[in-house]
């Protein structure tokens, strides 16, 4: 009978080892999956060996049925939790990416469209000059365009006035959150591999393109 305590001790040791061997930062799933596999394997082997020691057939069946229910529902619960956590994280990342791309689109278009409207309505002949007149107070640190409050500490979307000429205005939108299509792409800010879009305003309208 005392042998059963050695079994429990070995089960505890194996489960502990399998839980703490994976790295203990970031996701907990590697530890949870490893230790669950070890612990449930232990339970199956333990029952296979020790269940026959119970003489009453009714009690044997009760233990077997309850442990089976426990294992089946635990597996279902684990699958739902895992799937939920993966989708949750992906969904949050997608929402953030969507917000940032939509903000980049809106913040690049708004000042350019307003400039376009005034350019044609008042028959201006220098588009760059008009844009600078309208937004001079928002252009800081040489070319950083503070239209979207990008100087706030937690902002990750930055707008830049890349070029202003009599015929065109070029704005750049850059996100430090979204990874671009090419990891080696040189961004306007000097970083590499980040999402970048460009809006070019001419007298014919706004051309908008994703550069990375």
């Amino acid at each position: 009978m005392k042998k059963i305590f050695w079994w429990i001790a070995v089960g505890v040791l194996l489960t502990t080892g399998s839980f703490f061997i994976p790295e203990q930062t970031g996701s907990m799933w590697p530890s949870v999956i490893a230790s669950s596999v070890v612990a449930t394997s232990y339970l199956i082997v333990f029952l296979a060996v020790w269940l026959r020691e119970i003489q009453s057939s009714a009690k044997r069946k009760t233990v077997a049925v309850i442990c089976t229910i426990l294992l089946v529902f635990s597996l279902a619960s684990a699958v739902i939790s895992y799937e939920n956590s993966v989708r949750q994280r992906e969904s949050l990342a997608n929402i953030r990416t969507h917000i940032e791309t939509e903000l980049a689109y809106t913040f690049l278009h708004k000042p350019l469209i307003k400039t376009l409207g005034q350019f044609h309505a008042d028959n201006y002949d220098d588009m760059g000059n008009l844009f600078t007149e309208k937004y001079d107070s928002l252009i800081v640190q040489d070319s950083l365009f503070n239209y979207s409050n990008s100087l706030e500490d937690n902002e990750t979307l930055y707008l830049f006035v890349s070029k202003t000429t009599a015929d065109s205005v070029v704005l750049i939108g850059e996100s430090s959150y979204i990874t671009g299509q090419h990891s080696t792409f040189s961004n306007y800010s000097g970083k590499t591999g980040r999402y970048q879009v460009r809006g070019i305003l001419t007298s014919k309208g706004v051309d908008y393109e994703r550069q990375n």
Partner: protein
Amino acid sequence: MSDKTKQYWWLPWAVVIALVLAVGVVRSYFGNWFFGAPWSPASILVTKVGINEFSAGIADTNPYWSLRLNVFVVILLTFVVGPSLWVYGEIKNQSESPQDALKKGAAWYIGALLIVASLQVVPTTVMKGMVFQNTWSSAEKNKASDELRSGLTRLGFDALEYYYLPRELDGGGQTFASPQGRAIHLTDLESYNPDASQSYTLATVDSDTAIKIHGVSNQQGSDANFANADGRTGRIEITMTVTPPGELEFTVMNGK
């Protein structure tokens, strides 16, 4: 085993169930210690890291020891200690033939208590399944609404551009109503794609300075009988009003 012991076989289980309920009530006053669903904290941790990444832009590397140790202890008690002690208690009791139904020994009680507590996994899994279904069905609808708003924004800026451009540059020359001898069409807008998964319709243009574009999603909205602008019923619909030089205004006609 005495007749009395046989008659009252359920008594130890009643004690165990009462103990589990009592411990559950006490536990609810002392914070969130998970039992019966060791996977939930792992899921919560991933979500926490996701939220931090969402707000700060970088993934969080905090180990969250309290959640980790909670999960570890629950796995140990649920699959190793609980069932083992229960089986040990059953084997031990059959050799000792107790006269009192309640005299099962500490090992049996601890094992049975852990097993009963672990069986919470049954109702929680059923609940989780239902919540999972509702959550992700709702997320799909949110996504559809976001895509609709995004498509409308692009059409809105194109409409503003069209309004401001002079007629010689194929614009409206400060009017939507009759710039080219006819009112603006969606086909005048560069971003308009008639094959898009969402449908867009332009309301009758009866003003020089304002238009309304209706965006209709393929996803069902909250009102199943809502008459959508494109002739369908019950779909998510958002209407955008463009009034230069004002902002684009969005109105949810049939939400998620």
